[in-house]
Structures are given as structure tokens and as C-alpha cells.
């Protein structure tokens, strides 16, 4: 009866097309379908009892607490025009180039990634801040949307990254086990820290590739304008004034993590608080604006979490229908050889990324496949970064690409969903290209950890 899980998936995709809110389509279709299957004994209804426990798990998750806080921070920066000034200041550095704004988005996005690692918050922040500015400068809608979505997913790979922490946790035990299975009784270890250090160079390569792509497209475009004189002049007057405070703020977030004042979750709160202070100092935040910011924070966070709730219900039903067994049997038919096995695993993770999110893949799929690959002698850091890069694409691949949802949630109506889909395609291509580089030259990931530790 495992094929029913595929039917559910197809059904959800069809109902999504109606345009009814995604979160409720995910939840409602899954529930009704599970109910129908239960009538024929094809669904174990006791799984429904897990619902309140799973939902409570979502609201009681400390890591996800960072989402509304980073959203709040982003909105304060937007309302007080601080982040816009930052973006424009950085873009003024590249002002005479058409790609200036795109590069600024990538640079600012990279800095956000280095401080947050929360894809939703980064995409929302950048979407709110830079999408209108890019459109004003006549960037093709798809390029603007794609750049923001892809830049947002950098948080996955640029440390500190929650994805790497979860992945490191799973891979370290898989690595130990695979060695024990191989008869090695004083096993080598791999840690989350190894993955953090290992991800630095691949992350920077990815940023460089994004930048090169945006440069090429902008350079060849006839429609994109450079920053207008007025904006340039305006910013040039107070370039340091505009640049330093927000950079300082990002340094507060990044620094408070690196210097150990706060965990990433707490740093989100510190960042939001810092943003309020900064805006107050610049006299650019009044009571009405603060009210608007907090109302928008509720709406955006509520939107994100309703999707998480919907996805949680969907994945419960998907698992209950034996979707997991279906995935299992796929892996059992893996062709021999390290290269073949790795290729199949990467392909399957990529494909699963269309329907599942990184947490589910990390906890469900990686523990199944990692011991198999590691037993073949593959380097765990390399495997971890490969998987992390691969999972990054799951945020961008329709229909369940969370970066796409987040941007859709804050993009103006003039941006069509199809533009967002089109826009991310080249960036998915770039990610796969970097994945290929990493496959050919594993040292990209493994060299730095060897130097540090």
C-alpha cells in the first residue's frame, strides 16, 4: 500500500494549485486522505494521537524561537530604513556597475547567513528589504527573486548553521557505527565543529559563484539600470554613517555568537533589540512604526509556523502510509561501487528535497544511507558537506521549497509565483555545480578542518 503515499503527494500538489493557503492545503488534504485510507484499513489511525504532541513540539522548539526575533529585527531595519541604507551603501560601492545591487544583496545575505542561519528569517528580511529596490532598478523579477531565495539558503551552509549541527549529530554516530561494523574498535570521530570548519570554503565558493552569475546576467542585460544619481549622491554624503551602524549591528549578532555572549537563538533577540536602539538613536522609529513592526512580525511568523504545522501533519500521514518504506526499498536497490552509491544517494536526497524539508531528511534518510556510504571508506566531513549542500537545494525546489514560500509571503503582488520558480533554477544549477566541484575535489571540504584541528 506504499503507493498511497505517492497518491497523497500528487493530490496535495493538485489541491495546492487551487491557490488556497499552502499550510491548510498540506494539513487538510493529508488529514482527509488519511481518513479515507483509514476506512479501508490502509492507515493506522493511532498515529493521529501523535498530532498534539508534534504540534506542541513545534511551538516548544527553542531553535525555532529565533524566527520571530529575526523577523522583528528585519522589519525594524526596514521600517527605519537602516537596512535599506546599508544595502544602498554597499551597492554604492559597486554603484557604477549594474550588478551593484545584486552583489550587495549577496554580500548582505552572506553576512546575515553568518549570523543567523535561519533560512526563513533571511529570505523574509532580504525579501522585505531588497526586492522592491531591485525591481525599482529594473532587475528582471525572476533574477531578483532567485537571488534573494538562494542567498537566503546560504544560512544552511555558512556556519553557524543549524542544518550542520543536526547533520553533524547524525553523521558522527553513523561514522562511529560504520567503523565498529568494519571491526575498527577505537573509532575516529567527526564532530559538528569539523563540519562547521569544513563548510567555510565550500560556502565561500558558493557565494563567489552566485556573485559571478549575477554579474554576468546584469552585465548582459539592457534593461537594468545603475543606481540613479539621486540615490548615489544621497548615500555618498553619509556613506559611513549609513554603513557603520548596521554593520555594527550585524557584528553584534555575529560577534555575540562568536565571542560567546549569546547562542544563535539569543543573538536573534539581541539583534532585534539592537535594531530598535539603533533606529531610536537615528530618530527613525516612532510608536506607530513599532506597532506596525510587531503586527507584521505576528503575521509573518504565524504564516511560517502554520506551514510548519501543515508540513508536520503531512509528513506524519506520509510516513503512516508507508512513504518511508518506499524510500527504504529505493535504497536497497542501490547499484554497487562507492561512486555509484554516492551518486544514487545524492540523487535521491535531491529528489526528496522536492517534498520533504531538511530536518526530516537529516533525521530520516541520512541515518539510513550514511552508514552504508561511510562503511565504504568515504570521509565523513566530505559526506556531511555534500549532504548539506544538497539539502540546501530542497529550500529552492518547488513545490515545497520553503525559501519560495517565505519570499512569496512577503513579495508584492506584482511578483508572480512563476517568476520565483524561474528565478531559482539557475541558482539550483549553481549549487549542483559546486556539489560537482566538491565531488571531484573533496579537499575543498576536508583541507581546512585538518589545518584547524
Amino acid at each position, binding site marked *: 500500500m506504499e503507493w498511497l503515499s505517492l497518491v497523497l503527494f500528487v493530490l496535495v500538489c493538485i489541491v495546492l494549485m487551487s491557490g488556497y*493557503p499552502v499550510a491548510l492545503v498540506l494539513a487538510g488534504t493529508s488529514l*482527509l486522505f488519511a481518513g479515507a485510507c483509514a476506512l479501508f484499513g490502509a492507515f493506522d489511525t493511532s498515529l493521529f494521537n501523535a498530532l498534539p504532541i508534534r504540534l506542541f513540539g513545534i511551538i516548544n522548539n527553542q531553535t525555532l524561537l529565533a524566527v520571530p526575533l529575526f523577523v522583528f529585527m528585519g522589519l525594524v531595519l526596514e521600517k527605519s530604513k537602516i537596512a535599506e541604507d546599508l544595502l544602498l551603501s554597499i551597492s554604492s560601492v559597486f554603484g557604477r556597475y549594474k550588478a551593484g545591487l545584486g552583489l550587495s544583496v549577496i554580500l548582505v545575505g552572506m553576512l546575515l547567513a553568518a549570523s543567523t542561519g535561519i533560512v526563513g528569517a533571511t529570505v523574509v528580511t532580504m525579501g522585505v528589504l531588497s526586492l522592491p529596490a531591485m525591481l525599482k532598478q529594473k532587475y528582471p523579477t525572476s533574477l531578483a527573486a532567485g537571488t534573494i531565495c538562494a542567498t537566503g539558503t546560504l544560512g544552511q551552509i555558512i556556519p553557524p548553521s543549524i542544518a550542520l549541527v543536526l547533520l553533524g549529530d547524525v553523521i558522527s554516530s553513523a561514522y562511529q557505527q560504520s567503523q565498529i561494523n568494519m571491526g575498527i574498535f577505537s573509532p575516529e570521530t567527526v564532530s559538528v565543529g569539523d563540519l562547521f570548519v569544513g563548510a567555510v570554503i565550500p560556502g565561500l565558493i558558493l557565494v563567489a559563484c552566485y556573485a559571478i552569475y549575477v554579474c554576468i546576467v546584469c552585465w548582459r542585460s539592457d534593461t537594468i539600470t545603475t543606481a540613479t544619481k539621486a540615490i548615489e549622491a544621497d548615500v555618498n554624503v553619509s556613506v559611513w554613517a549609513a554603513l557603520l551602524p548596521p554593520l555594527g549591528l550585524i557584528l553584534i549578532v555575529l560577534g555575540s555568537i562568536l565571542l560567546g555572549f549569546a547562542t544563535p537563538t539569543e543573538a*536573534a*533577540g*539581541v539583534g*532585534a533589540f539592537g535594531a530598535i536602539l539603533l533606529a531610536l538613536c537615528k530618530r527613525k522609529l516612532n510608536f506607530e512604526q513599532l506597532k506596525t513592526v510587531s503586527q507584521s512580525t505576528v503575521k509573518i511568523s504565524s504564516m511560517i*509556523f502554520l506551514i510548519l504545522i501543515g508540513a508536520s501533519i503531512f509528513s506524519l500521514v506520509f510516513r503512516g502510509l508507508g512513504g518511508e518504506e518506499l524510500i527504504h526499498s529505493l535504497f536497497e536497490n542501490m547499484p554497487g561501487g562507492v561512486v555509484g552509491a554516492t551518486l544514487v544517494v545524492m540523487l535521491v536526497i535531491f529528489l526528496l528535497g522536492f517534498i520533504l524539508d531538511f530536518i526530516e531528511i537529516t533525521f530520516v534518510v541520512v541515518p539510513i544511507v550514511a552508514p552504508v556510504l561511510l562503511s565504504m571508506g568515504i570521509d565523513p566531513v566530505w559526506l556531511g558537506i555534500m549532504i548539506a549542500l544538497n539539502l540546501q537545494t530542497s529550500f529552492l525546489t518547488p513545490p515545497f521549497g520553503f525559501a519560495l514560500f517565505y519570499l512569496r509571503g512577503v513579495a508584492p503582488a506584482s511578483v508572480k509565483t512563476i517568476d520565483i520558480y524561474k528565478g531559482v533554477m539557475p541558482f539550483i544549477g549553481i549549487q549542483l555545480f559546486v556539489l560537482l566541484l566538491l565531488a571531484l575535489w573533496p579537499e575543498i571540504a576536508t583541507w581546512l578542518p585538518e589545518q584547524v584541528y
Partner: protein
Amino acid sequence: MNLYTKKINAASEWLGNAMGLFTLIMVLLMAAIVILRYGFDVGTVAMQEGVLYLHGAALLLGAGYTLKHDDHVRVDVFYRSVTARTQHLTNFIGHLFLLMPVVVFVFVMSFEYVLNSWDMMETSPEPGGLAFVYIQKSLLLLFCVCLFIQALAMMINDFVAFRQLSHKGAR
């Protein structure tokens, strides 16, 4: 009917604003936690959990408010290009067959779970944590109620608008 939707909309608006205040308090409390802990070596798990409680309330109780403002994400490839009449119909059917069953079902499935927590007067397992886990869990039920009531108000609006647009189309 009209009075009902008006009252519900006003209530959702009020709740949304209150939750907005919660997010502001979250920010201030989180900053206070960090400053106290790293500046003054003072800290309690209770404060950390306080932020978590506010967070849960803002997300769940804000869901109806978000629905009212139509801020839940849609795949609008087709939705944006259809008539307002079809949009109202889509929303009416969606509320009736997707939203309503979900919130009613989640409410029913959560009821005993929440009740059990009240029964135990469940407290935090963490040292110095808050003793109101049962209130935090009750948010699940309130979430369902908020969404249900707001959806009902919107279905009335959708129904009325659909009828009006249909009549215009018929003329």
C-alpha cells in the same frame, strides 16, 4: 450575520495587536536575558521559558489574525488570474473542507492531551523552569478556536460576496 463578522473581525484585530505586543516583549526579555547573564552572571530558566511561552502564543493565537489579513501563503499560479467570484468560492470551499476539518480534528485530538496536562498541573522539567506547561499546551486549543471563529466570519463574507458577484454576472 453582519454583526457577527464585525465582532469577530474586531476581536481578531484586538488579539493580533496583543500578540504584536507579545513579540515586542519577547525581544526585550531575550535581550534582558543575555545582558543579565553575560553582564551580571544572573540567569533563570524561567525567563528563557517565558520567551518561549510568548512565542507560542504569538504564533498560534495570531493565526486567525493572519487569516483575516490574508497573509497565509498561497500557490497563486492560477489563483491570481481568476475572477474575484472564483476566489471567494475557492476560499469558501477551502475553509469548509480543509480548514474546518483540520481545526476541529486538531481540537478533538488535543483535548485530552491538554486536559491531562491540567490534571497533572504540569510543570517544567528544567531547573527553575515555569510551572505553567498546562497553559502553554492550552494554546493548541485556543489556536483551533481562533482559526475556526475567524474562518466562519470569512465564510460568511465569502458567501455574501459570491452571491452578489453571481447576481451581477447574471444581469
